[in-house]
C-alpha cells in the first residue's frame, strides 16, 4: 500500500511538473505573439506613411537635433526611400517599390504570427490533457479506472478447458483425488486424468488386470460378503452413486485384498484416479466436496480400450465391461440375483454406448452388431426359412434376453463372468439346472438357422411363464424349420449338381 501511495505521489508530481512546463511554453508563445503584433502594427503605420509621403514634393518638419532639441527643416526627395533589406544591405527605391517590399515583409510577419498561434493552441490543449491526467491519477472527478483481475485458475478449469490448461496441475489434482476418495467424492474430472501419459495408463491397466483376476477368484470363493464389507470400509457414500460406483468399489476391493486387506484409502484413491480414464463410460456431472472449492467436474465418455484379458474361464472380455459386470453383480447380489450381462446393462444404461453394447454380440472377440429386431422377428413369425444371418444375430440377442428372464432363480456367479454377448459361438449348453432356459439345444453359429428361438416380446422383463411358452413354441418350430432348411440347401446342392 505504501509503495502504491509513493508511486501515486510521484505520478502526481510528474504530472504537475508537466503541466507547469506546458504552461511555460504557452506563455512564451503569448509573448512572441505580442511582439509580432507590434511589428505588424508598425508596418501598417509605415504603409500609411509611404502612401501619403509622395503627395508633396517637400515637407516642413521639425528635425530632431540630438535628444533634447528640434530644428525646423524640410523633407525633400519624398519619393526616394532607402530600404534596409537586412544584413546590412540597403536599396534605394521609390515609395511604391518600398511598398512592395513592405508587403513582402508583412507577409513574413503574418506567417510567423500564425505559427505562434498554432503552437500556443497546441500547448494549451496539452495543458488541458495534463490537468485531466492529474484528475485521473488523483482519483478526483468522474474518471474511473476499469480493471479486470486475473481470477484463479479454478475458474478456467470449470469452463471446460481442462485438457490444455491443467497440464501443469495434474499432480496437485491427483492429491485432490486422494482426499476426495476419503471424503467419498467421486467422478473427479476424468478428462483431467486423460492428461496422464499413455505409458502410465498402460501400466495402470496391467495392474488392474491382475487385480481383476484376484477379485474374480475371491468372488467365486467368498461371495458377496467381502466386497460389501470392503465397500463399507472405503466409502459408504459411493453406494449412493450409480454408474462407475461399483467399479470404484471393485477396485478398492482388489486393492485391499491384494494388500492383505489393509485399508489403504490413499492407494485406492490413486488407483481410482488413474483407472477413471479407462473405466469412464458415462458422462458425469458430479459435485465434489473434497476440494475446498465447490466445483463441478465432469467427465467425458471414453470408449474403453479393447483389451483382452483372460479371466478365469479363458474367456476374453473387454476390460471395462468386466468391471461393469462386477458392479452390476455386486448390486444384483443385494437383490439376490445372479448376473446376466444384458439385464444389468438394461438397468445400467446411461449413455448411448451402453445401449450399443447391449445389442452387440462379441463373437470370437469381435463385436458384431446385431441386425434389426424387426426384420428378423417378422420373418421369424411368418415362419419363413430364408432368414440367413439376420436370424443368427437375432438368435443371439434372444438368447441373452431369454437368459435375462431366466436368471432370477440363479445365484451362481460363475456364469456371470462367462456370460457375455460373445459367449460360445459353439453354443455351450446352458446350465441344466436352469428351468427357464431360452433354449436347450446346441447352437451352431455358422448355420444361419436358429434352432430354437424364443419368441420374445420387446419388453424383456416379463413373467417367468413366458419363456416356458416360448420354449414350447420353439420346440415344435425347430424340427419343422430344420428340415426346411436342410431341404433348401440340399435342393441348392442338387441344383448345382
Amino acid at each position: 500500500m505504501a509503495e502504491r501511495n509513493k508511486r501515486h505521489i510521484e505520478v502526481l508530481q510528474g504530472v504537475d511538473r508537466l503541466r507547469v512546463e506546458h504552461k511555460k511554453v504557452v506563455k512564451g508563445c503569448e509573448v512572441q505573439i505580442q511582439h509580432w503584433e507590434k511589428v505588424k502594427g508598425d508596418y501598417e503605420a509605415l504603409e500609411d506613411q509611404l502612401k501619403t509621403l509622395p503627395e508633396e514634393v517637400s515637407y516642413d518638419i521639425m528635425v530632431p537635433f540630438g535628444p533634447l532639441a528640434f530644428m525646423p527643416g524640410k523633407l525633400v526627395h519624398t519619393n526616394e526611400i532607402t530600404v534596409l533589406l537586412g544584413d546590412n544591405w540597403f536599396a534605394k527605391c521609390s515609395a511604391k517599390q518600398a511598398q512592395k517590399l513592405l508587403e513582402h515583409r508583412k507577409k513574413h510577419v503574418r506567417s510567423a504570427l500564425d505559427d505562434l498561434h498554432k503552437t500556443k493552441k497546441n500547448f494549451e490543449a496539452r495543458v488541458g490533457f495534463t490537468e485531466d491526467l492529474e484528475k485521473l491519477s488523483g482519483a478526483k472527478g468522474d474518471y474511473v479506472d476499469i480493471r479486470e483481475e486475473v481470477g484463479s485458475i479454478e475458474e478456467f478449469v470449470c469452463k471446460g478447458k481442462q485438457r490444455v490448461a491443467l497440464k501443469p496441475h495434474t499432480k496437485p489434482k491427483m492429491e485432490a483425488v486422494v482426499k476426495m476418495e476419503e471424503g467419498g467424492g467421486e467422478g473427479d474430472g476424468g478428462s483431467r486424468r486423460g492428461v496422464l501419459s499413455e505409458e502410465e495408463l498402460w501400466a495402470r491397466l496391467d495392474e488392474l488386470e491382475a487385480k481383476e483376476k484376484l477379485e474374480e477368484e475371491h468372488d467365486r470363493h467368498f461371495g458377496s460378503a467381502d466386497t460389501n464389507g470392503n465397500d463399507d470400509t472405503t466409502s459408504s457414500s459411493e453406494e449412493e452413486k450409480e454408474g462407475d460406483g461399483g467399479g470404484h468399489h471393485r477396485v478398492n476391493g482388489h486393492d485391499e485384498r491384494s494388500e492383505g486387506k489393509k485399508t489403504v484409502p490413499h492407494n485406492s484413491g490413486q488407483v481410482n484416479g488413474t483407472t477413471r480414464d479407462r473405466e469412464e463410460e458415462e458422462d458425469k456431472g458430479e459435485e465434489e466436496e473434497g476440494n475446498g472449492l465447490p466445483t463441478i467436474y465432469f467427465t467425458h465418455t471414453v470408449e474403453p480400450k479393447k483389451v483382452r484379458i483372460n479371466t478365469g474361464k479363458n474367456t476374453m472380455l473387454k476390460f471395462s465391461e468386466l468391471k461393469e459386470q462386477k458392479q452390476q453383480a455386486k448390486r444384483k447380489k443385494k437383490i439376490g440375483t445372479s448376473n446376466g450381462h444384458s439385464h444389468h446393462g438394461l438397468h445400467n444404461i446411461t449413455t448411448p454406448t451402453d445401449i450399443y453394447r447391449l445389442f452387440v454380440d462379441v463373437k470370437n472377440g469381435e463385436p458384431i452388431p446385431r441386425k434389426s429386431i424387426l426384420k428378423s422377428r417378422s420373418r421369424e413369425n411368418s415362419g419363413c426359412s430364408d432368414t440367413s444371418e439376420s436370424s443368427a444375430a437375432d438368435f443371439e440377442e434372444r438368447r441373452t434376453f431369454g437368459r435375462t428372464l431366466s436368471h432370477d432363480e440363479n445365484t451362481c456367479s460363475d456364469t456371470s463372468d462367462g456370460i457375455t454377448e460373445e459367449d460360445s459361438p459353439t453354443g455351450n449348453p446352458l446350465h441344466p439346472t436352469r428351468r427357464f432356459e431360452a433354449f436347450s439345444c446346441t447352437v451352431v453359429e455358422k448355420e444361419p438357422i436358429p434352432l430354437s428361438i424364443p419368441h420374445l416380446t420387446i419388453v424383456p422383463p416379463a413373467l417367468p411363464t413366458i419363456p416356458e411358452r416360448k420354449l414350447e413354441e420353439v420346440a415344435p418350430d425347430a424340427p419343422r424349420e430344420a428340415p426346411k432348411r436342410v431341404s433348401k440347401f440340399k435342393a441348392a446342392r442338387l441344383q448345382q449338381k
Partner: protein
Amino acid sequence: MAEAIQKKLQSELEKYQQMQKDVSKSMSARQKLEAQVTENNIVKEELDLLDTQNTVYKLIGPVLVKQDLEEAKATVAKRLEYINGEIQRYETLLKDMEKKSDQHREVLSSLQQEYQRAQGLAVGKV
C-alpha cells in the same frame, strides 16, 4: 577509499559541466546562424522584387557603398550558402558533444553510487 572516490567524482563532475557548457555554446551559435539564414532569405527575396533602376547600398561600417543589384544578389546567395554550411558543421559538432556528455553522465552516476556505498560502509564502520 571514500576520499579517493570523492575526488574522482569531483573531477568527473567538472568535466561534465564543461561538456555541458560547450554544448550550450554550440547550441546558441547554431541558433544565431538560423536567424541569419532567415534574414538572408528575406533579403534575397526583396532583391528579387527590385529592378536595376534602384541602387543598392551595402553598409560597411559607417559607409554606405553602392552595389550592383546583380552583385548584391550574388553576394547574398553566397552568404546564404556559407551560413547553411556552418549550420551543418555545428550540428555534427553538437551531436558529438551530446554523446560525450552522455558518457560522462553515466560515469558520473556510477561514481556517485560507489561513493554512496563507500560512504555507507564508512558510516557502518564508524
